[in-house]
């Protein structure tokens, strides 16, 4: 138990010491809008941003992540205060993932989770960026311990957390669907009731800002059409982030045989249909070392009748289905499902290690004939 706590602490120190990228070098408009909107919220100026030519404009993204940064934007000097907030949420990602593994598979699983997160670039890179991916992944993984040991408060927390995830990124509705699939029907009412306030709040805010509860910042900025199409699965015309936000630790070398590649190497040269499954298997080492998620997938499949296994499988499947047909290709979109697989892989590794240890000690204790 002490070892697990120490391993988690070591990773946290590593994440805390990650350099913060200057806001001007972070993905625009995402980071700039998040940071500036958090600053506006914290100072009672509403959910607006001034990053577009200095004029007051609504951000294109839902307000959840900016709201999560607001407590940090209330103290200190901008933008350092907001960047500290982003780092805090990256650290929360580590803590929640390690605790989830610990709850599911004991301290050894926690150690494995800490090691796998520690040797992978995602948490550390997230600490330097004002992006919502680590926090959405945190809320995705938070469901695992809540599903393992159910309680009334746990169901409320699950509903509340999912509502928050959706107002951070609308596609996080996947998590709520998966949660409803995984939990017994008697929990539906509580889960939905606790997710609903955030969604109703978002609808009211959009009504106030854009004139309709269904109009979003995307429609305001004229970028909401053509988000999804069947052709994006194989098309080369999707917009690709490549390795420019979250880079593969191997620089795409595992898949270098597919090259000649576009700028960014193999991480920016695959169609969605190939990219996302390979990413989830860690052919690009961003969330966990290569092939580790296979163990998580195996664990989830074997426990597909349990809430934890079913939730993981549904999140993975729906994420693949959704993002394969999405206009933008981004490594970070898989942060949630990839971390779920990492946690379950840690549990699997812990259980296999314990089994092996038991066999070895049993053999040593058995007297020779």
């Amino acid at each position, binding site marked *: 138990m002490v070892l697990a706590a120490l391993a988690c602490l070591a990773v946290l120190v590593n994440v805390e010491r990650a350099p913060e990228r200057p806001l001007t070098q972070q993905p625009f408009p995402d980071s700039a809008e998040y940071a500036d909107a958090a600053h506006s919220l914290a100072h009672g100026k509403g*959910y607006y941003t001034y990053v577009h030519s200095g004029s007051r404009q609504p951000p294109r993204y839902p307000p959840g992540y900016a709201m999560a940064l607001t407590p940090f934007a209330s103290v200190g000097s901008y933008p350092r205060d907001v960047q500290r907030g982003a780092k805090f949420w990256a650290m929360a990602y580590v803590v929640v993932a390690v605790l989830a593994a610990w709850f599911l598979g004991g301290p050894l699983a926690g150690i494995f989770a800490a090691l796998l997160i520690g040797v992978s670039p995602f948490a550390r890179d997230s600490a330097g960026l004002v992006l919502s991916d680590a926090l959405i992944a945190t809320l995705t993984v938070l469901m695992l311990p809540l599903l393992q040991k159910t309680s009334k408060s*746990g169901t409320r927390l699950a509903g509340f957390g999912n509502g928050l995830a959706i107002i951070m990124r609308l596609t996080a509705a996947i998590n709520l669907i998966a949660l409803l699939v995984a939990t017994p029907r008697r929990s539906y009412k509580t889960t939905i009731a606790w997710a609903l306030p955030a969604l109703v709040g978002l609808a009211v805010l959009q009504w*106030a800002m854009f004139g309709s509860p269904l109009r979003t910042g995307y429609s305001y900025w004229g970028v909401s059409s053509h988000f999804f199409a069947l052709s994006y699965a194989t098309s080369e015309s999707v917009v690709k982030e490549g390795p420019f936000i979250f880079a593969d630790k191997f620089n795409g070398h595992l898949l270098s045989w597919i090259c000649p590649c576009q700028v960014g190497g193999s991480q920016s040269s695959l169609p969605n249909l190939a990219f996302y499954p390979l990413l989830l298997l860690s052919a690009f080492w961003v969330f966990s070392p290569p092939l580790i998620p296979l163990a998580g997938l195996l664990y989830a499949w074997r426990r597909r009748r349990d809430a934890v296994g079913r939730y993981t499988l549904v999140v993975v499947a729906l994420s693949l289905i959704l993002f394969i047909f999405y206009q933008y290709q981004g490594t970070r979109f898989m942060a949630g499902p990839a971390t779920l697989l990492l946690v379950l892989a840690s549990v699997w590794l812990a259980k296999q290690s314990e089994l092996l240890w038991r066999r070895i000690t049993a053999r040593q204790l058995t007297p020779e004939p």
Partner: protein
Amino acid sequence: MSRTLGTQLAASILGLLIGTLLAPALATAVPKPRVILSVAPVPTVADPSPGTPVVTWSTGDGSPGLVTVSANGGRETPFAAEAEGSAAAPWLAPRQKYVFRLYATGSGHRLLAELDVGHSASTIVALPPHPRLTPPVVNRLLELLSLALVPAMAILAIMHAREVRRDA
């Protein structure tokens, strides 16, 4: 007649100047970028060969731009990627419906202008409208809710932990 129509069309399209893209609600001192997206001459049924159609565009402020075209409601394909310029579109044919779109790509992927080159050759300009401002009470409520989110999550997590421990 058709040439006149083409000229009128070209003139009207060339007159497509978008005043304020990000029209500030409060800051009136922000310079107004001048966005241009035009096609001329446009082939018509009566005059299918008025000359090589040329697409002209400008994001107005030197920021990177992307011009796309979709034919007959099909998928958008990139046409050009520069802040401003002109490029020939000799494949424009009468009786076909083309939609050109100009995006600013430096500030995310933002639609600046849309040009409908069809039978009627109508022109539509898509602009971010002036933002509605939420009342101060809503802004204050948002601030308070933002500050309450983390404590609310923490309280629920503690309640869950206590409940699980009690059941165990």
